[in-house]
């Protein structure tokens, strides 16, 4: 599967099918810090991502001054 990361934008390849939970675990990403998006839809931790899929891991932490 192709995994698109943001800030900065980059792509990774992961072999085989895996649940969202396992993908995040493999990449050492805390689930609270991202949305996992496939074809414009949010995925849940139990959803299966197949080898042919492209998913975006969209960070949700934003910062800076008194936003």
């Amino acid at each position, binding site marked *: 599967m192709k995994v698109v990361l*943001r800030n900065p934008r980059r792509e990774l390849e992961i072999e085989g099918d895996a649940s969202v939970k396992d993908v995040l675990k493999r990449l050492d990403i805390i689930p*609270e*810090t991202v949305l996992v998006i496939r074809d414009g839809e*949010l995925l*849940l931790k139990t959803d299966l991502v197949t080898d042919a899929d492209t998913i975006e891991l*969209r960070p*949700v*932490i934003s910062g*800076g001054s*008194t936003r």
Partner: protein
Amino acid sequence: MKCKVCREPAAIEIRRHHAVFCKDHFFEHMSRQVERTIHDFTMLEPGEKILLGVSGGKDSLALWDLLTDLGYEVDGVYIELGIGGEEGYSSGSLQLAEQYAKNRDLNLQVVDLATDYGYTIPEAAAETRRVACSVCGLSKRYVLNRVAHDGGYDVLVMGHNLDDEAAVLMGNTLNWNLEYIGRQRPVLPATKEGLVRKVKPLLRIAERETAAYCVLKGIDYEVDECPLVGGNTGIRMKEWLNVIESERPGTKQRFLFGFLDRVSDQFASAHQEEVELNECSNCGQPTTNELCSFCLLQGRMADRG
């Protein structure tokens, strides 16, 4: 996973509430959380003129959407900070804010720091040798209050969410900044002429939820992080809190609301003792000095060679 309300396929899980929602029941949940926060802290009264600080990011656009759907008439103000040049971060955020306002037929006022005040955030950071977030925070606080005051608004609504407030509280607690801890309230009253009341209706909502709300509602928001934010301690605080949250869901909410419900009153005196405000001799806004920090900054930027 199934929605806990209707058993239809779920769109999002919120672990700290032990809840899974479909899209529609998630929207309902968000709306109820905002409504409850407004009610519990008496944030907005009927008939008040409301201004929202809009950044083009997930929090302010989600909040504008939620408040509008709750029946509030809310104008927005966007501050063009001049970050990233003509095709850069600020102009992209502005486009998203304008697009949202246009789609929902809402009123958005734009203040351009460069045009209206003579500097951009990168210029001010370079000139003062301060971190960008510091001059940015100072500029935004001043301009937002100024626009709200001059526009006759009763209240300035901000998109600070649960993560923002928990991270600020953690930072101030780790350093025992008593004045700042005493100042951290869901409602900041207009204690002096020239100040407009500030309220934070997203207090109960984590930023993952505002982002999810925008995605599920089809609201385009600025996903990229500000390019000047590197090393910001607020983001580090959020990351550390999220490590705890992932093992103990609900920690952020218990930390913030435990403070607000049971502790914050004990710090109020630390804040009040510190507040002796005069009028800035240049702009008339409240300040502890002769010139307010914003006018000092603006003067310095005007004087640069």
